[in-house]
C-alpha cells in the first residue's frame, strides 16, 4: 500500500498541489534534498500529461497519484483512467516521442524527455484503468 495516495479532478491548478504533496512525502521518506527538485518536476510532468489526457478523454475521472516509501527507494505512480490513450503511449515509448506530430506531440516529447532525464528509474505500463508512469529515486529510509 502506498504511503500517501492522492486523487484529484483533472484541472491544471491541481498539478501544483500534487507537486507539493509529492515533494513533502519525498522529503519525509529520506530522499536527498538535492533530488527534491527533480522529484517535484518529474511528478509535475507526469501529472500534467495525465490531466491533459483526462481533459480530452475522460474529464469526470480523477487522476491518481501514489507515493510509496520503500526500503531504500521512493516510488511515485501517476495513473490515468484513459485506456484510449494507452495504446498510443505504448506504441510511442520514451525514445520515440519526438516522432509524434504537431504541437501536442512536441509537448508530449518534451514532457517525456524531462521525466526520463530526471527520474532515477522510469517505467510506463498499461493497467486496467489506463496508463501508469512509475518513477523512483533512492532514499535514505523514512523519517518515522
Amino acid at each position, binding site marked *: 500500500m502506498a504511503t500517501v495516495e492522492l486523487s484529484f479532478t483533472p484541472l*491544471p491548478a491541481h498539478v501544483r498541489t500534487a507537486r507539493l504533496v509529492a515533494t513533502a512525502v519525498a522529503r519525509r521518506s529520506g530522499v536527498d534534498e538535492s533530488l527534491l527538485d527533480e522529484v517535484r518536476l518529474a511528478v509535475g510532468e507526469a501529472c*500534467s500529461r495525465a*490531466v491533459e489526457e483526462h481533459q480530452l478523454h475522460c474529464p469526470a475521472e480523477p487522476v491518481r497519484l501514489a507515493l510509496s516509501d520503500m526500503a531504500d527507494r521512493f516510488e511515485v505512480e501517476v495513473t490515468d483512467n484513459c485506456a484510449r490513450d494507452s495504446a498510443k503511449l505504448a506504441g510511442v515509448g520514451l525514445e520515440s516521442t519526438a516522432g509524434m506530430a504537431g504541437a501536442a506531440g512536441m*509537448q508530449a516529447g*518534451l514532457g517525456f*524527455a*524531462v521525466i526520463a*532525464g530526471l527520474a532515477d528509474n522510469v517505467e510506463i505500463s498499461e493497467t486496467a484503468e489506463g496508463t501508469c508512469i512509475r518513477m523512483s529515486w533512492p532514499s535514505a529510509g523514512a523519517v518515522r
Partner: protein
Amino acid sequence: MDLKLDHHSKDGIEIVDVEGEIDVYTAPRLRELLIELVNSRFYQLVVNMEKVEFLDSTGLGVLVGGLKRVRAHDGSLDLVCTQERILKIFRITGLTKVFGIHDTVDEAIAARRSEK
C-alpha cells in the same frame, strides 16, 4: 507562487520579466503575452527568467512557440537565466542549442546587437 508578468522596452528590444512558476496552469498567460507582443510588432524579445522558481515542459513549449512566432518575422527570442535548476531542464531537452541563454539582460541585448 503564482506567475507575475511584466514587460518594458530597452534599447529597442522588448524585455519580458517573468516571476514565479511556469507550469501547465500558468503557462497559457505567458503564451498570451508573447502572442500579444508579436501581434503588436515586437519581434526582438528577451525573456528574463531570473525570478522563475519553476519551469516545466508546458513552459518550454510556450517559449518554443514564442521563438517560432518571432522567427517568422525575422525576429529573436533570447533568455536570461543563471539558475542551475532551470538551466538543467533546457539541457535535458536539448533546448540550449535552440535558445540564446545569457547571464544578464544587458548581455542578451549586447549579443543581439552584435548579430545585427
